[in-house]
């Protein structure tokens, strides 16, 4: 908090001159970056189409309402599939992510090289969105639930492993010391000392991921992964916007219920 002297009168300023300049320079760089990026996007955009956006919106809303509620009858199967994709994908992810996490945690990994392998699995799984995984899988094994389930599982492995291995690294080492001093083997230290400590955290992680997976599985059908997204895609392609609004309502309903269930169960176990 420097004080400058201007015309013989001391003036308080929040920053000194250099800080002020640097701050403004920072703002300038940020502004220029955003402007340059925007110009690039503007160059890629056909503004002619943007101009009639208000009409398009009005048209879209007009077609969406009233929703064709009778269409709901044909969605229950898709809804069931959607839940299954999320749940089975999460279950498969659990099976894979537990060993990966133990390999990745510094205090349980058997070897440094194995730790790097585990980290590689985690990073690649986490960096690729489940929709991209689904695109690849649909191309390889064909459209359907299976592709969706595997895509969800592949994306979730990285998420669950990362959070689990961080939890493992944070366990209280004292009880582990006590077990070791009683002559426990490595496997016994894991089952008696580490598992009880990380189990609640892991259950929370899994439920959280299941909630996220429910959201993802509503759209995975857009690329052929099965579930309600298939109907969404079909309705959009057929320009049946009154059905689309029904599907949107269904998705919101499912997402809200899943979030509620996940929060309730997490509350119950902790």
């Amino acid at each position, binding site marked *: 908090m420097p004080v400058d002297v201007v015309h013989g009168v001391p003036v308080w300023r929040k920053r000194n001159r250099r800080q002020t300049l640097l701050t403004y320079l920072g703002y300038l760089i940020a502004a220029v970056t955003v402007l340059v990026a925007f110009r690039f996007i503007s160059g890629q955009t056909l503004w002619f189409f943007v101009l009639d956006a208000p009409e398009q919106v009005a048209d879209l809303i007009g077609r969406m309402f009233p929703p064709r509620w009778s269409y709901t009858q044909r969605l229950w199967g898709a809804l069931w599939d959607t839940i299954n994709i999320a749940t089975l994908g999460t279950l498969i992810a659990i099976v894979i992510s537990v060993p990966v996490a133990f390999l990745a945690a510094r205090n349980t990994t058997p070897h440094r090289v194995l730790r790097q392998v585990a980290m590689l699995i985690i990073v690649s799984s986490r960096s690729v969105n489940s929709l*991209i995984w689904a695109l690849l899988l649909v191309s390889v094994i064909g459209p359907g639930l299976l592709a969706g389930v595997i895509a969800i599982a592949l994306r979730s492995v990285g998420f669950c492993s990362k959070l689990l291995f961080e939890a493992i690294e944070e366990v209280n080492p004292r009880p582990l010391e006590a077990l070791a001093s009683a002559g426990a083997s490595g496997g016994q230290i894991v089952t008696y000392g580490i598992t009880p400590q990380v189990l609640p955290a892991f259950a929370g992680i899994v439920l959280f991921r299941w909630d996220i997976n429910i959201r993802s599985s509503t759209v995975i059908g857009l690329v052929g992964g099965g579930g309600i997204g298939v109907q969404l895609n079909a309705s959009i392609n057929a320009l049946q916007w009154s059905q689309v609004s029904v599907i949107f309502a269904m998705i919101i309903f499912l997402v809200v219920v899943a979030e509620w269930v996940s929060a309730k169960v997490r509350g119950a176990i902790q």
Partner: protein
Amino acid sequence: MSAVAAPSRTPPRWHPKPAIRNPWLRYGLLLGGLVYLVLAFATIDVNWNRVVQGVDRARVLFAGLFRPDFMSRYEFIQIGILESVAMTVVSTALGVVLAIPFAFGAARNIAPLPVYLVCRAIIAVSRSFQEIVVAIVFVVMVGFGPLAGVLTLAFGSIGFLGKLLAEDIEDIEPSQLEAIVATGGSWFQAMAYGVVPQIMPRFVGLSVYRFDINFRASSVIGIVGAGGIGGALNTSIARYEYGTTSAILLVIIALVYAAEYASAAIRKRVQ
């Protein structure tokens, strides 16, 4: 190994306590879980012929991963990446600016009830829909291209930042705000001196985090034509050009990792 001799006649008086005490509930849940699993797996009907065909493709894909082909679609990849980065920058800036009023509006301790309800509703809608669904709607509105992507990501950012910031504002130390109000400051002055300093570090941290999330999302929404690298990825897969596919995947992984790393580093410095 055993120092204490093997099984004796007296049965052990102790059994580990089961996690669920009521045996009906315990076995009921177990049975229910099994039935669900069987039913759920039954819904996956696998076209085995198609899967067998897929083995060959999987092999090509995997081979491609080790021989990524950056060159044959160089133009597409380059434009896609530039679009993704530009979309991320603009949408994050736009989203952050737009999220601020929503955050204040959605904080119960500051906003009047009607404003609060409207803001919360918009935030809830924004958070319920996946980016890809929002992208479809925006593509219909403004046509194909990165502008739809920018709007999509900005919309998502409003929900994300609005909700988390609103929670922070609700958690502020009320005495500090009271003190500013007591000095006779106007509403804006009270916000600027009583609220903003308290939430600033979190605000910067969340914005940087959202930048990271927007970048990840920007690689996907291209699938429905909202710009970014996703479009090129989609095309390469549709044409079975797996060399290009793996090149794009590698670029995505590298960039996502870099963005995450940078975001974590900045957040650490701010907090």
